[in-house]
């Protein structure tokens, strides 16, 4: 199993739109690879089918078995990281070895406040199993 690490400078995981997302990746590969890519993308989770959008990437062809490299992206103006009842949108950085597709992922937040936008503030009810009368 290869060793893959991805990290941002100052261990930042929150970025405002337009900010620089920079850091380093490290890989120690079990076997040689065709390429190693660092990807910036967003994806959804929730009740709907997942959507994924690759926003930016940097590719290192014919990588040495052991290497450390820098990456720099610019956080786009959107979409913001958010969570609702049906949909959450998450941003992440992924280090991917090709063609084996070994992966290491780092979740980040992109939003003006630096925090995930929460859609349904203040709507909370308790659901009980009617037969037991206990909250779930």
């Amino acid at each position, binding site marked *: 199993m290869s060793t893959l690490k991805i990290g941002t400078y100052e261990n930042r995981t929150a970025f405002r739109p337009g900010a620089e997302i920079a850091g380093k990746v490290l890989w120690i590969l079990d076997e040689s690879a065709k390429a190693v890519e660092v990807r910036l993308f967003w994806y959804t*989770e*929730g009740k709907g089918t*997942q959507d994924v959008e690759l926003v930016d990437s940097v590719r290192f062809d014919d990588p040495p078995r052991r290497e450390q490299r820098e990456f720099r992206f610019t956080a786009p103006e959107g979409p913001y990281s958010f*969570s609702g009842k049906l949909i959450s949108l998450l941003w992440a950085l992924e280090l991917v070895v090709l063609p084996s597709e070994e992966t290491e992922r780092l979740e980040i937040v992109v939003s003006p406040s630096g*925090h995930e936008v929460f859609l349904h503030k203040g*709507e909370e*009810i308790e*659901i009980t199993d009617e*037969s*037991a009368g206990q909250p779930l």
Partner: protein
Amino acid sequence: MRARDNPFRTERVHQVRYRLLDGTWGEVMRRLRELDYRAAIVGPDGSGKTTLLEDLAPRLAKLGFTTRSLFLNDRKRTLGPTERGEFFARLGANDVILFDGADLMGRLAWARFKRRTRGAAGLIVTSHRSGLLPTLIECRTTPELLDDIVVQILGDGAGLGELPHRLFEKHQGNLRDALRELYDMYSATAPATDAR
């Protein structure tokens, strides 16, 4: 509750693999071999046909086959000429075709499709009705199965009491709809506090 935290979000539900109610995987693969890898997975909506088809893929890969996937659904009821052309152009003698929703294909189109795939190593389809190919498994669901799935998804060993059984009855065994209702119930519960 945030969508990403909802234990019944689609990505989490899709991680639950097919559970055989009768027999073992070894028996299933043996039967598949007896049927010359041309068989149908039959069952009603929400009974796990697609999941079972997906779970066959790595097992077939272990036997040295390459799997090729196709699907039809209520929004896509035919294979377009481009998709069909590309598919058959790349179809090889070592390929097993995994075809989800084959019963949506017209009779004539299905007969033609079967004929054209004779050269492939296998063809396994999902269908709501029997008759397309010999039946490999008839997917069925039970309240206990839903209960087990819920326990697995929640991950804390505890279940939801009688709720899965009532949902099972309400949705007439359609586990997908039952799990989607559980999603709705959980999404209405107290959210995680706003990170700020």
